[in-house]
């Protein structure tokens, strides 16, 4: 701590240069924070995935899968139970306010016991045919509370009587990590019966729970094989694979890491250049310090701390700004449409930023420090050192 005034004096010797360096480091760490925060989100979502569930969708584009496929899937060996959902897309009041409700089978809560919905809340939903459970994000978006009526106009899924869908909020429930825009859950039974006859008994997705988690992948293949020759062939994926970003074509997590690494190289070149220039300009000052008793080690520490100060401060400000921006991002998306996965600013993101900042400072200070170790004091004091 007693060296702090000396370090601060060195850093503030050229305030404009220091501030520009700090800003550049900060911007690089905003990028770093957002990308590593995205990876934290991916990790969190992947960690929350259950290894005993399979998600099945229609393999080719169509109007939905026959409800009968749920019953047939439930008969396959190794399948414990099957839930299904139908989608109710539409808008609320004006077409700009897009809304979506997931109409679920009655056993949805049993297949997804990890969702933060209590048995009492499921019961409330099942007892109210036109009821919906609404997550906190959606409740805040639409300013809804239990007892309110939320109307969805759905051009795709018109009711048989031609009316809009008036859904009654029965409870507000917590959100689920991977449903980043929040969710609304209604009763598939009610939804199905309210549709015109020609549109009834169609589902959008099957969720299968297996008895033996070790056989989940094999059972997913078995489901696809079973419906391979039907008019609506399925594509089944284990929930683990579906929520693991690295297995979904473009590995976004790896891409994020490369972007963060590129940002760190930018900071490294910037800091290394700045500290090298600063040391070059002050060789006589360092020679004076060595003359009056500062050892090589003390001088190297000073240079390292001089490099570390803008790096660590820039990292803290940058990741802090990234955390702030992450909180503001949902506001950029229209209500009801959901949002893409957003960065999660965990403690580890801040720790990684600090570690990277320290590493950048260490590497960028290495060459100037080496130069100072080799500095010939007599030559430097005479002004001949270049």
């Amino acid at each position, binding site marked *: 701590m007693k060296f702090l005034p000396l370090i601060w*004096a060195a850093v503030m010797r050229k305030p404009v240069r220091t501030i520009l360096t700090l800003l550049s480091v900060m911007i690089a760490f905003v990028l770093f924070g957002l990308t590593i925060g995205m990876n934290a989100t991916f990790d969190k979502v992947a960690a929350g995935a259950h290894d005993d569930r399979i998600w099945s969708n229609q393999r080719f584009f169509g109007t939905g899968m026959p409800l009968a496929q749920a019953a047939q899937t439930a008969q396959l060996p190794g399948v414990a139970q099957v839930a299904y959902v139908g989608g109710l897309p539409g808008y609320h009041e004006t077409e700009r306010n897009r809304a979506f409700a997931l109409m679920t089978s009655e056993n949805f809560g049993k297949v997804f016991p990890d969702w933060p919905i209590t048995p009492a809340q499921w019961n409330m939903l099942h007892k109210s045919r036109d009821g919906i459970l609404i997550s906190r994000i959606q409740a805040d978006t639409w300013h809804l509370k239990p007892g309110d009526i939320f109307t969805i106009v759905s051009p795709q899924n018109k009711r048989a009587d031609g009316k809009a869908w008036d859904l009654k909020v029965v409870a507000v429930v917590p959100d689920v990590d991977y449903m980043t825009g929040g969710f609304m859950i209604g009763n598939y039974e009610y939804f199905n019966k309210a549709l015109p006859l020609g549109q009834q008994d169609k589902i959008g997705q099957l969720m299968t729970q297996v008895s033996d988690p070790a056989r989940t992948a094999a059972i997913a293949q078995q489901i696809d094989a079973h419906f391979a020759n039907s008019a609506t062939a399925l594509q089944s994926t284990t929930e683990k694979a579906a929520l693991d970003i690295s297995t979904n074509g473009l590995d976004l997590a790896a891409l994020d890491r490369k972007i963060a690494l590129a940002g760190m190289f930018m900071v490294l070149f910037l800091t290394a250049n700045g500290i090298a220039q600063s040391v070059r300009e002050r060789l006589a000052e360092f020679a004076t310090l060595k003359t009056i008793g*500062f050892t090589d080690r003390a001088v190297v520490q000073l240079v390292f701390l001089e490099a570390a100060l803008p790096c660590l401060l820039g990292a803290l400000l940058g990741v802090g700004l990234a955390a702030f921006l992450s909180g503001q991002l949902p506001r950029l998306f229209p209500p009801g449409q959901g949002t893409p996965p957003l960065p999660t600013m965990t403690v580890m993101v801040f720790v990684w930023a600090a570690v990277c900042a320290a590493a950048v400072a260490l590497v960028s200070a290495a060459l100037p420090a080496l130069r100072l170790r080799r500095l010939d004091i007599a030559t430097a004091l005479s002004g001949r050192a270049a």
Partner: protein
Amino acid sequence: MSSAVSLRNIVKHYRRGREAVEVLHGLNLEIAEGEFVSLMGPSGSGKTTILNLVGGLDHVDSGEVVVAGAHLENMSGGALTRWRGSHIGFVFQFYNLMPMLSAAGNVELPLLLTHLSKTERRRRVDAALEIVGLKDRAGHKPGELSGGQQQRVGIARAIVADPAILLCDEPTGDLDRATADEILALLQQLNRQHNKTIVMVTHDPKAADHAGRQLEMDKGTLIERGMVVA
């Protein structure tokens, strides 16, 4: 009186390109404790080389350098640095102050390497600034001080760790006559009242007159110009 500085058979070469130039040829010098010695001579005669050898900033090619009882020719770089910090105070021609630190901050620098408490450091800094007559300018940065005041800060920095020996390289070379006389009077005061051994390199015969003993370097050889009463 025992020796503060003892140089015996000193040989020192410098390389200029491919050529080795011998600056000191078997030089001998004894400086007693409490002496104020001036070292004069033309540029390139080896004055600063002697100062650097006595201060442990440079190594001899052969010979013995004994300063404050320590054989410097055998010391490693790190040991020499630590030794310098506690035994030698340096005063430079161009003051060599840290421009962003206050006068007090500059004077405190040698004490940062000690285990002294902040309060004790502060006390010693105040005492050193008091001796050089700059206590009221402790908070000023070098850019806010005159040349003479900056040199006083440099002297305060040199004495704050209470070294036995002060090495001054052209301490008045950048000052006008009146200010130079003030600085030289201050060095005399440090020599007489605080018993500091002072070795001062100078080009200025009037500055040299303030020393108790005057030496002149000529082509690597020392010429004693006789003891004078300072």
